[in-house]
Every structure is written in C-alpha cells, then in structure tokens.
C-alpha cells in the first residue's frame, strides 16, 4: 500500500506534542468565547458539553488506532498516548465545568446526583477508569509495570469508552441520532478486536 506508506512517512514528521497544543487550545478558546459572548446565551452548558463531546471524540479516536493499523496499515501509534491523555484532560475539565459552573459547587446536590443519577454515576465511572490510564501514560510507568501488566491495565480503555458513550446517551431527552452513533462506534471499534488474528505466515512445521 504505497499511499499509506507515504502518509505514514509524512506523519513521522509531525511531533505528537502538537496534539497536546490543540487539546489545550480548546478550553482556552472556550473560555475566551464565553467571556466575549461567542458561546450564545448559555455559555455554561456550551463549555460543559463541548468539553465532554471532544473528550468522547478523542476516546473514539484512540480506539481507532489499532484497527487502522491492522486493517489499513495506517500507523498512528506514535500519537495514541497524546490522544488518550488529551481525552482525559478534556474529561477532567468537563468534570470541573460541571462541578463549578453548572452545579455552582452545590455539594449536597452534587454528591447526591453522583450516587443517584445513573448518567452521572456512569460518567463518573468513566472518569475514574481513565484516571489510572492517564497517570500511567508515560515511559517510566511502562517500564515499572512491565509491558504485559501495563497492557492489561490499559484494557480499562474499553469499559471507560463504553461508559463515556452511555453517559452521553443517557443524559439526552428522546433518542437523538448523535449519541446513538457514538455508542455504536465504540461498540464497533471494540468488536473489531474480537476478530481473531490470522498468523501472518504459517511457518511450516518440521515433519
């Protein structure tokens, strides 16, 4: 696949830190737009929802990395950590926007809601599952844990992604298309991992 090879070659010239820059630009832009009236009449909701939505989009993107490499040869492995950590950063800001801007630090109701409201409970679960993933997304942790244990820990990505998509679908009224598509995408991308890998070249067994 020469086309893919050319893309892969081009991508090798893009440093992964640019993703952190783009991720950081989003909340900066949101805050600037909110204070200058650019987010409409309900900036609180706009900030909260935009941060959550982009976090979910990056979670979907993270899940694309392995299937893209396996089925198309496109190699985005170098960017996976940056995508995941940025997804976590936006989820953290989304949580803070909810606590501070939306709930107004109304702790009695906030804590009750986390326990009682299924969509908030499942959103919080998604965040808590992402926390160890973000904390261990560094070379030191990979060395410390060892490859096998690190990979086992990072399978938490799958339940976290499902929880994040369910969180979105569970909070809307009626059945709009977008949250259904996100949940379907997550399910599809996880499902691709269940396709058994054929051994690339069957080595002839000694007779």
């Amino acid at each position, binding site marked *: 696949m020469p086309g893919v090879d050319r893309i892969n070659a081009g991508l090798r010239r893009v440093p992964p830190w640019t993703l952190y820059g783009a991720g950081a630009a989003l909340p900066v832009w949101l805050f600037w737009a909110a204070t200058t009236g650019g987010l409409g009449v309900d900036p609180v909701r706009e900030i909260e929802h935009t941060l959550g939505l982009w976090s979910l989009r990056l979670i979907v993107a993270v899940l694309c990395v392995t299937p893209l490499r396996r089925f198309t040869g496109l190699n985005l492995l170098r960017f996976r950590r940056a995508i995941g950590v940025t997804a976590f950063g936006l989820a953290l800001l989304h949580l803070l926007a909810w606590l501070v801007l939306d709930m*107004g630090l109304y702790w009695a109701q906030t804590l009750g809601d986390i326990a009682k409201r299924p969509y908030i409970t499942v959103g919080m679960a998604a965040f808590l599952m992402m926390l160890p993933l973000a904390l261990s997304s560094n070379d030191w942790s990979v060395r410390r844990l060892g490859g096998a244990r690190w990979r086992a820990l990072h399978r938490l990505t799958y339940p976290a992604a499902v929880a994040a998509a369910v969180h979105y679908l569970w909070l809307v009224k009626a059945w709009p298309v977008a949250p259904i598509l996100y949940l379907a995408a997550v399910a599809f991308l996880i499902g691709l991992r269940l396709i058994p890998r054929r051994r690339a070249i069957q080595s002839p067994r000694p007779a």
Partner: protein
Amino acid sequence: MRRQSPADLQWSDVTPKSFFLNRRALIAGAAGMAIAVPAAAKLDYVTSPLSTDEKPNSLEDITSYNNFYEFGTGKGDPSAYAPALTTDPWSVKVDGLVGRPGSYDLADLLSGIPLEERIYRFRCVEAWAMVVPWIGLPLGKMLEKFGVQPGAKYVAFETLVRPDEMRGQKSPILDWPYREGLRLDEAMHPLTILATGLYGEDLPNQNGAPLRLVVPWKYGFKSIKSIVRITLSDSQPETTWNMLQPSEYGFYANVNPEVDHPRWSQATERHIGAGLFAGREPTRMFNGYADQVAGLYSGQDLARDF
C-alpha cells in the same frame, strides 16, 4: 356564560364568506399602513398584576435558546430554521365538547379579548429558567367564546404538522403532531394564557408563533407551540412527552423541587443569562406560583401525579 350544544347550531351561525374576506381585506390594508409607519408593529396591550417584578431575560436570550423539536433538537435550531414557517394565514380547529366547533381564523379567535402583558417565570424540565414578558390573553376567556359544554373535563392541544417548513418533523424523534393537554380547571385558571407576542411585538416563530400556550407553574414542555387544534374532551388526552417516556414526564408536570426527574434533580435550577459563575438557585414550588395554583391540587399526591 350561555350554553349551546352542537345540535343548536344552524348554518346561519357560520360567518358568511364575504364577511371574513372583507375582514381580511381590512387586515391587509392595515398591514399596508404598517409599512408606511414601522412603529405600528407594536401590539396594543395592557399590563397585568399577575406579572412578576423580576427582570425579564433579554430578547436574545428568549429567541436564541429554545426547545422546539419541530425544527431540530439543538437549542439554536429553532432560531436558525423557524423563519421558514408560514404563520399567516393561520387557522385553528376547535372541536370536541364545545358549543361552536369549527375552523377559526386566528384573527377571529383573538377578536374581542384585550391583549395583556404577562411577565412570567419560565422553567424548563431540563432545570434551566428564564423570565419572559409574554403578550397574550387568558385561555379561559377564549374557551368561553366557544361555549364549553358541561361534560368537558380536559383541553387538548395540537401543534402544526408541516414537515416542508418544520424540518425537525422529517425525523421521527417525537410522535408528531406534538400534543399537550390540561385539566379544565387548569385551563380556566387566570394565569394560563395563549401567547401571541413577546416584548410587545408579534411572537417570533421560534417561540411558537403565532399562538402558543403558556402555563407558568408547569415545566415548559406543557406550553405547546404553534397551536392548530384545541379539543375539549371528557377524558385525559394523550400528551407527547408522556407518550414517549411515561416514567419521566407526567401529565401534570408541575414544577416541584421535591419530585425529581428520574435522571436528574429538580431541586435547583440554572438561570439563563445570569453569567458564567452564577451557579444555581433553589427551584420554587409551582415555579413560584404556589399561592395562586396550589389549591387546584389539594388532596392530590403530587409525587404520584407528577
């Protein structure tokens, strides 16, 4: 109130076509004058002691942040797409247990009842709130015009179905037409109005032009928009959100801080336009109208009849 059953109706009761055609000519003439004198677009209305003294939200708040799924599920969809809706001519079908059923031109419905400004608190089931300076008339006064029959216990309303102009209706997100209803005593309550205007001018399309219900002590989804049918009946009508999710949206839908939506708390609300760090305020029983309306529900368990 003079009672009249449909059997008493004669063909002579029907407005002759030449009469209403003349009336339309007059209205058209008035519209022509309005072009010459732009300030005449303002509606004539009186103020009301039923208005709150709270400061209304800006026209921009009220006209750019709407739930009107006929135009899409996004808050900005109604302001973006509702201008496509034709609201003139507009007729409303009045049927069921009324003395004078029929299809009424909007101007006929409104004639003879003075418009009032009603500045009301508005509370959405999604836990956000605004204050809106509606222009409208008491629903009860209009119902009296039709002659409500003694057997009538409920009023049902339907929104226009016109997918060509209401693009949200091309998707089956709700079971169109949008339906809502009130118990007759709720409908006759002086706080319940049919709104035709906002901020002293005709109602913008995204707010439910040309005719919408406003029931200030109930969650906003009860206040059905762009009404084309009013039916008096003896049984509780089906209502759209209740049909979709009966465990979450009751027929009554009274604002109540103690009865939560199953998925979120109703104890507090966010005031649109209050700023980035305004936080929340406690929800008020019956949205602050408890003194006027609590009596309607004496003896009812509001946790069951939510």
